[in-house]
C-alpha cells in the first residue's frame, strides 16, 4: 500500500500551471508576475526545507527534537498573529495572546496524542508534528479572529462601554457582549466548515491519509478526532485570551484606556 513517488521531472511539469498564470498576468496587464514567481519559489523552497528537516527529525525520534519543532511552530504562529492584527495591540495583550495560544494548543495536542490516539512514545514525530501543526494553525486563526473582533469593538463601542461604566457597571459587565462576540467570531468558521465536511469537501488530513493507503474508515476516525480537538484548542485558547485580554483595556480605576494610538492603521 505504498504511495506512488513523483519524479523530479514529473514535479517540474506541475510548474507549467505557474507559466500559464504568468502569461495571463502579463497579457491581461495584471502586473502580478513578480508576486507569482516569488510566491511559487518561496512555497517550493520552504516545503523542500521542511521535507528535509522532517526527514531528519523522523529518522532521529527524540523528545527534544520534537519539542524544538513545536516551539518553532508556536513562535512563528505568534509572530503571525501580531503581524496580522488589524489594530495595534499593547504589550500586555501580546503576552496574553502568546500565553493563551501556547497553553491552549499544547494542552489539546498532548490530550489528543496521549489519551485519544495513545501514541507510543508520546513524542513520536510522525504523529506529534503534523497533529500539532493542524492544532496550532487553527488556534492561531481562531485567536486572530477573536483578537481583531475584540480590538475593533473596543474602538467602535467605546462610547457604549463608557456609558455602561457611568451607569455603575463593572468593567466585566460593561464588556460582557464584546467578550461573547469575540468568542463567537473565533469559533464560527470552524463550526461552519464542520457543517459541510464530507459532503462539499474531504478535509486535508483525511485526504492525505487515504492517499497514503490508510483505510477510509480509519482516516475518518482521525479526522473526527482532530476536528473536535481543533474546536477544543480554539475554545481553550480564546477563553483564556478574552477573559484576561479585556482587562488590559481598563486601568485600576476601571476606566477605559483605549487611546488614540489604538486607532486603525
Amino acid at each position, binding site marked *: 500500500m505504498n504511495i506512488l513517488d513523483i519524479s523530479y521531472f514529473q514535479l517540474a511539469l506541475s510548474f507549467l500551471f505557474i507559466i500559464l498564470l504568468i502569461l495571463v498576468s502579463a497579457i491581461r496587464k495584471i502586473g502580478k508576475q513578480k508576486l507569482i514567481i516569488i510566491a511559487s519559489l518561496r512555497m517550493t523552497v520552504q516545503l523542500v526545507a521542511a521535507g528535509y528537516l522532517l526527514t531528519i527529525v523522523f529518522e532521529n525520534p527524540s523528545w527534544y527534537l520534537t519539542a524544538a519543532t513545536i516551539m518553532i511552530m508556536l513562535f512563528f504562529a505568534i509572530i503571525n498573529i501580531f503581524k496580522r492584527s488589524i489594530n495595534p495591540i499593547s504589550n500586555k495583550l501580546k503576552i496574553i495572546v502568546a500565553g493563551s495560544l501556547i497553553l491552549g494548543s499544547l494542552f489539546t495536542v498532548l490530550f489528543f496524542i496521549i489519551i485519544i490516539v495513545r501514541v507510543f512514545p508520546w513524542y513520536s514525530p510522525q504523529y506529534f508534528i503534523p497533529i500539532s501543526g493542524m492544532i496550532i494553525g487553527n488556534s492561531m486563526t481562531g485567536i486572530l479572529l477573536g483578537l481583531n473582533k475584540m480590538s475593533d469593538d473596543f474602538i467602535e463601542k467605546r*462610547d*457604549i462601554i*463608557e*456609558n*455602561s*461604566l*457611568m*451607569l*455603575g*457597571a*463593572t468593567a466585566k*459587565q*460593561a464588556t460582557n457582549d464584546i467578550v461573547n462576540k469575540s468568542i463567537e467570531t473565533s469559533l464560527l468558521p470552524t463550526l461552519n466548515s464542520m457543517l459541510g465536511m464530507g459532503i462539499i469537501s474531504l478535509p486535508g488530513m483525511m485526504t492525505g491519509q487515504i492517499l497514503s493507503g490508510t483505510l477510509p474508515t480509519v482516516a475518518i476516525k482521525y479526522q473526527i478526532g482532530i476536528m473536535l480537538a481543533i474546536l477544543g484548542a480554539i475554545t481553550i485558547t480564546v477563553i483564556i485570551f478574552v477573559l484576561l485580554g479585556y482587562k488590559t483595556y481598563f*486601568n485600576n*480605576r*476601571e*476606566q*477605559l484606556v483605549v487611546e488614540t494610538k489604538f486607532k486603525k492603521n
Partner: protein
Amino acid sequence: MKFSFNKIKYKHILNIERLEINENAVAIVGKSGCGKSTLLRIMANIISLDSGDYLIDDININDYNAVSFRRIVTLMNQKPIIYFGSVKDNIVIGMLYQNKTTPDDKKITDLLNAFNINCTLESSAKSLSLGEQQRICMIRSLLLQSKVYLLDEPTSSLDKETEDAAMTTFFDTAKSIGSQVIFVTHNPIIAEKYAERIITVEGGMVCEYP
C-alpha cells in the same frame, strides 16, 4: 455631597487652582471646548487627573472604590447612548448593572408620560428621535436614585419648549429623591432658572461672576 478640587490639571484641557461645589443645583457654563465636559468626566471618575487633588466629602477620590463611587455619582452623556433592544431594556439596564430590582411596567410608563415620550415599552429604542432618546437616558439615570447627577448638556437635542418641560420634570424628580444635580449647559436661561449657582469655565480655568 461636597466636591473639592485643589490645583488640578488634566492634559492641556483643565487647570483649576481651587473649586468647591456644595450646592444642590449647580450649572456649569462656558464656550465649546473650554473643558466643562472634561470636568464632569473627572467628577464621575471616568477619567483621572494628571495632578492635583479631587476630594468628595473631604475623602480623596482614589480612596473610593471606583465602581461603588459611580453608583452614587451618575454622569449622563451629552450624546444619548442607546443600547440594542427595547425602550424598557434601555431604561432598566443601569439597574441591572447595579443589581437593583427593576420597577414594574406601570412606573416606567408613568415616567415615559411625565417626560412626554409617546412609545410603548417594547418599541425599539433606536427608532426614537434623538430628543426622545435623550429623555430615555434621563429616565434611565433617575431610576438609579443616585445621590448626585452630573448632566452634560442634558437637553442639547431638545427644542425650547420640550427642554424646559424635561428639565422641570428631571429637577422635580431629583428633588423628591434628594439628589444633587450639577449640569453643563449652553443655555443661560436654563442655567439661571434651575441653578442656585453658576460656574463659568474659560480655557480650562474657573471664573465665577457673583
